């Protein structure tokens, strides 16, 4: 890595460079480059990694903690009672299993030894342990691995000695032998009989899964770990806290919904797990599992009881259709009481199937209330489940996955009770919708009073639910309602001690204020929060506040500040925590928007494509978030002057929005931007109806900031249509609104001036037009906005100057427009701003009686590629060139 001869020089130079700040360093390196170019180049390369080192937190933290849990001890040779441990036999969720041997002359026996966590240390615990063990010891069935012995060893360490089973897991066995349906079912029946026997003795397995069902070399199925989940999880009876935090071992893929929610599991949880197992054995896949699907999305589907039929799996056997589909579905019902009442009943149905007799399980002719609800009101559920439920889902899965429940029980209790509260809340909302059709709006509106009613006594939960509700309003761009809810949540949370939640609420409120024109106030609020928030304890909250501040900065075009906040936020989110998925996506999206605004369109486009792909992967394709990303991706393409490419994006967005049946909750932005693309494709007559829709939505929802922007677009479209009267009317409406909501230095103000320039030219007032274009240019320059935006203003300026016969100024402006547009191309090969600049240039050259054909040809090439033939012709016509 380091050239030998110059190590000392490099080392010393590096010491020096590290102490310098960035400016000093650049200057110093430049100096050094003159003197020792090789050394300077080497140093520059090494120091170039500095940002990445910081951002990736390269070598931050340490591996020592991780190595800890890995350093499980080697117990070989240790004696446990009469047994001598030989080797490690396996390692899983329940810790390490050891293979041990008894060889005392009388017996020669191989056993498996499992050590349990030690909640049994006190005398009462030990007595309970002995009781449980006696119970398990009575479990005697040829298909259940026997408990041979148990005891409490040194350091109060309880252990179990179990029959050592050599074999392969049932799923691998079935796959390897390519067993047919009858063979699988008869194997499965043996299991069912064993489980049924255990249930009769009141022993529940709670962790049934293929690795606990081994098939011996003789082809005999053996169930492992029966009743052990209980020994490992339960510590004491009674207390409420343990009911929630007791995280008995389970495997999420096989756990029943009630287990996922941290509720006690009984025999019906085993019925569920057996349903999963049967599904897996027959189709090769577990129910609810799709490739690339997030844990949260899966949880959501499980909780909504939306299980596709087993036979609908790609490649599933046709024979599954009908009875087997129904049997599996009945075992897998979300509600315990809808499942088979016992394992014996399930076994009975499997037997009937094998005997070609009618089974008890029926296809659900009666749709559940929830599924009826889903059909009637798709967006309602989309929002309900995405918002309220997904919060719960993400929390629960995150907790389960990380086993936090054990480590941070106070926090975990809080999170779990929140998860349960959201469940209750959702159930209450769904009940409301059971009798009469409700719109999403009505659901949300009733949400607030429901929350107050149900959770009035628990400020933590009440604040969190209000917060979640406000997020929903926020995502529907109903800022005023969102802000009211957040203010309410803010005052509620004061009486709780959850300072992380308080921070998130305030930062969300600040972000929302940014959307409604109070960016400065918002930024101040977040600054204040960040000052008091302990970064170490509230990393996620800290990150989300930084992201909010970055978003507010971006909204007022402070792109440098925005970028640094957003990047800092990204470096703080823990990417391994699935509950951060959404925040990370949103932050990345905001960052991509900032890049685009600054003119780094190619980078932004790449990032958006990745983001859209990830959101699809997360199963969130049909959400308002995905729609927002699609919309903003379209905006990036528009900003880069790629209208031809932008149109299908908006077409898709419009379709998806219609598919979501959003009605009055539709996002006006999509209509507005789609209209903008059409206007630039010279189809203003198609754009106008879209604008009108957007304006109506914005008006109805009191989105006045939006109204300002929308009016600019509408006026622009009329201007392109040549309707000076309408254009001016809209312009007059927009001016005071823009002044009210946007600072003089803002891209919306620049857009206003561009539009006013267009109107002035249309009215034959070239002087005024020049003034407006000049102002637009100044704003864009001052804000450091994208080159294509600046090129637009310059092209307008050139045309207006040409109108006035000020050809020298016109030519200069057109030339600058052209070079800016060229630089702004990035990875794109053509763009509309470049075409437009060239078109203006050709027009001026013609007026100067200079050769212009070459320029015109180039303009046509650019335009055809970026706006298509139709628009090209229309633009040529407007510029007074013969249409080709």
């Amino acid at each position, binding site marked *: 890595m380091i050239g030998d001869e110059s190590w000392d020089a490099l080392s010393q130079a*590096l010491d020096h460079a590290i102490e310098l700040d960035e400016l000093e360093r650049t200057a110093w390196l430049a100096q050094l480059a003159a003197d020792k170019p090789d050394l300077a180049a080497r140093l520059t390369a090494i120091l170039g990694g500095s940002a990445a*080192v910081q951002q990736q937190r390269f070598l931050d933290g340490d591996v020592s*903690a991780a190595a800890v849990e890995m350093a499980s001890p080697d117990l070989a040779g240790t004696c446990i009672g009469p047994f001598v441990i030989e080797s490690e036999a396996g390692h899983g969720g329940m810790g390490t299993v050891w293979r041990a041997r008894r060889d005392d002359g009388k017996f020669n026996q191989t056993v498996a030894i499992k050590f349990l966590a030690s909640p049994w240390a006190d005398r009462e615990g030990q007595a309970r342990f002995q009781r449980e063990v006696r119970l398990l010891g009575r479990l005697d069935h040829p298909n259940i691995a026997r408990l041979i012995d148990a005891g409490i060893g040194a350091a109060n360490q309880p252990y179990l000695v179990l029959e050592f089973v050599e074999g392969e897991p049932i799923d691998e066995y079935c796959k390897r032998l390519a067993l047919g349906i009858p063979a699988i079912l008869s194997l499965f029946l043996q299991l069912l009989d064993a489980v049924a026997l255990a249930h009769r003795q009141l022993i529940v397995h709670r962790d049934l899964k293929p690795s606990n069902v081994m098939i011996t070399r003789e082809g005999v199925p053996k169930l492992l770990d029966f009743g052990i989940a209980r020994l490992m999880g339960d510590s004491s009876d009674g207390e409420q806290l343990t009911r929630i935090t007791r995280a008995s071992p389970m495997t*999420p893929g096989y756990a029943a919904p009630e287990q996922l929610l941290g509720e006690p599991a009984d025999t019906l949880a085993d019925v569920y797990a057996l349903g999963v197992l049967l599904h897996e054995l027959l189709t090769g896949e577990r129910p609810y599992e799709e490739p690339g699907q997030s844990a949260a999305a899966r949880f959501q589907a499980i909780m909504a009881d939306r299980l596709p039929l087993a036979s609908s799996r790609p490649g599933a056997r046709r024979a599954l259709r009908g009875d087997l589909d129904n049997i599996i579905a009945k075992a897998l019902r979300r509600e315990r009481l809808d499942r088979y009442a016992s394992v014996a009943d399930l076994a009975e149905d499997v037997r009937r199937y094998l005997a070609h007799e009618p089974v008890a399980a029926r296809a659900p002719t009666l749709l559940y209330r929830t599924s009826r609800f889903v059909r009637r009101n798709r967006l309602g559920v989309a929002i309900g489940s995405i918002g309220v439920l997904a919060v719960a889902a993400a929390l629960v899965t995150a907790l389960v996955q990380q*086993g936090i429940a054990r480590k941070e029980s106070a926090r975990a209790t809080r999170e779990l009770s929140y998860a349960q509260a959201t469940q209750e809340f959702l159930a209450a909302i769904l009940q409301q919708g059971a009798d009469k059709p409700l719109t999403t709006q009505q659901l949300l509106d009733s949400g607030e009073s429901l929350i107050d009613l149900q959770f009035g006594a628990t400020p933590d939960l009440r604040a969190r639910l209000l917060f979640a509700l406000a997020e929903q309003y926020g995502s529907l761009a109903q800022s005023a309602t969102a802000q009211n809810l957040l203010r309410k949540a803010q005052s509620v949370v004061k009486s709780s001690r959850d300072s992380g939640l308080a921070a998130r609420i305030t930062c969300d409120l600040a972000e929302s204020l940014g959307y409604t024109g109070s960016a400065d106030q918002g930024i101040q609020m977040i600054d204040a929060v960040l000052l008091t928030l302990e970064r170490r304890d509230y990393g996620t909250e800290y990150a989300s506040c930084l992201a909010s501040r970055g978003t507010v900065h971006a909204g007022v075009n402070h792109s440098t500040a925005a970028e640094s906040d957003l990047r800092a936020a990204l470096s703080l989110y823990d990417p391994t925590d699935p509950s951060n998925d959404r925040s990370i996506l949103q932050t990345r999206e905001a960052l991509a928007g900032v890049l685009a605004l600054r003119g780094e369109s190619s980078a932004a486009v790449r990032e958006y494509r990745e983001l859209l792909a990830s959101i699809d992967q997360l199963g969130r394709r049909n959400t308002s978030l995905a729609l927002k990303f699609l919309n903003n991706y379209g905006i990036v393409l528009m900003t880069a002057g790629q209208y031809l490419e932008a149109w299908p994006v908006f077409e898709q967005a419009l379709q998806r929005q219609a598919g979501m049946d959003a009605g009055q909750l539709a996002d006006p932005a999509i209509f507005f931007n789609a209209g903008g693309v059409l206007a630039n494709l010279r189809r203003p007559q198609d754009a106008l109806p879209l604008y009108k829709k957007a304006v109506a939505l914005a008006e109805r929802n009191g989105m006045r900031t939006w109204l300002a922007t929308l009016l600019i677009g509408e006026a622009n479209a009329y201007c392109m249509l040549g309707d000076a009267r309408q254009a001016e009317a809209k312009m007059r409406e927009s001016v005071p609104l823009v002044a009210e909501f946007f600072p003089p230095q803002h891209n919306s103000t620049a857009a206003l001036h561009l539009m006013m320039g267009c109107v002035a030219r249309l009215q034959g007032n070239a002087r005024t037009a020049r003034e407006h274009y000049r102002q637009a240019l100044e704003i864009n320059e001052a804000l450091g906005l994208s080159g294509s935006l600046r090129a637009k203003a310059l092209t307008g300026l050139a045309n207006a100057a040409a109108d006035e016969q000020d050809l020298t100024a016109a030519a200069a402006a057109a030339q600058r427009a052209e070079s800016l547009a060229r630089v702004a191309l990035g990875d794109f090969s053509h763009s509309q701003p470049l075409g437009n600049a060239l078109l203006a240039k050709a027009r001026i050259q013609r007026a100067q009686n200079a050769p212009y054909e070459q320029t015109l040809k180039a303009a046509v090439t650019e335009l055809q590629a970026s706006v298509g033939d139709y628009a090209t012709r229309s633009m040529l016509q407007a510029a007074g060139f013969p249409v080709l």
Partner: protein
Amino acid sequence: MLSNVELDGLFRNAERGKGVARDQLFAALYSELHRIARRELSRQSPQAATLSATTLLHEVYAELAGRPDVVFPDRSRFMAYVSRAMRGFIIDRVRQRQSQKRGGEFHFTQLNTAISDSVAAAPELQKLSDALDELAQKDAALAEVVDLKFFCGLTLGEIAVLRNVSERTLQRDWEKARLLLFDFLKSLE
């Protein structure tokens, strides 16, 4: 367990700067780490066994420094030797665990986020280790900072005290080491 005579010899030779002796010392310390880790862990319940590298490091020091008849280098030199051995110990542990992981099944245990942030897995750790070896040839002290901090979990403050330098100096060394290693690893991509 190493006899005192063996240990004494290894330390002396390593201190005299013999490369081979150094390797032998690392190997010896590596097996001591194993032995002491096993002993410490078997004192705890196997289910909940926890032992941080930092604790292990101090245990090893306490044990070996307490041996009679060993001419023992000072604490800081000693830590430098053990931290190198610890690196190998941890990488082997990570590798071992990863090879035991079976696909398809859900695992409750996750790597510490610190790992997944910076270096994900055994092959990555191995690359880092190679880079450290190379860095050590140029500047052993710099590589030791990384061993002590990243692999043994000591804080920069602790390392500064150990080395009797200011924390600021150590901070600079740390930055420098990170930059050089990052540069090296990048050049491998």
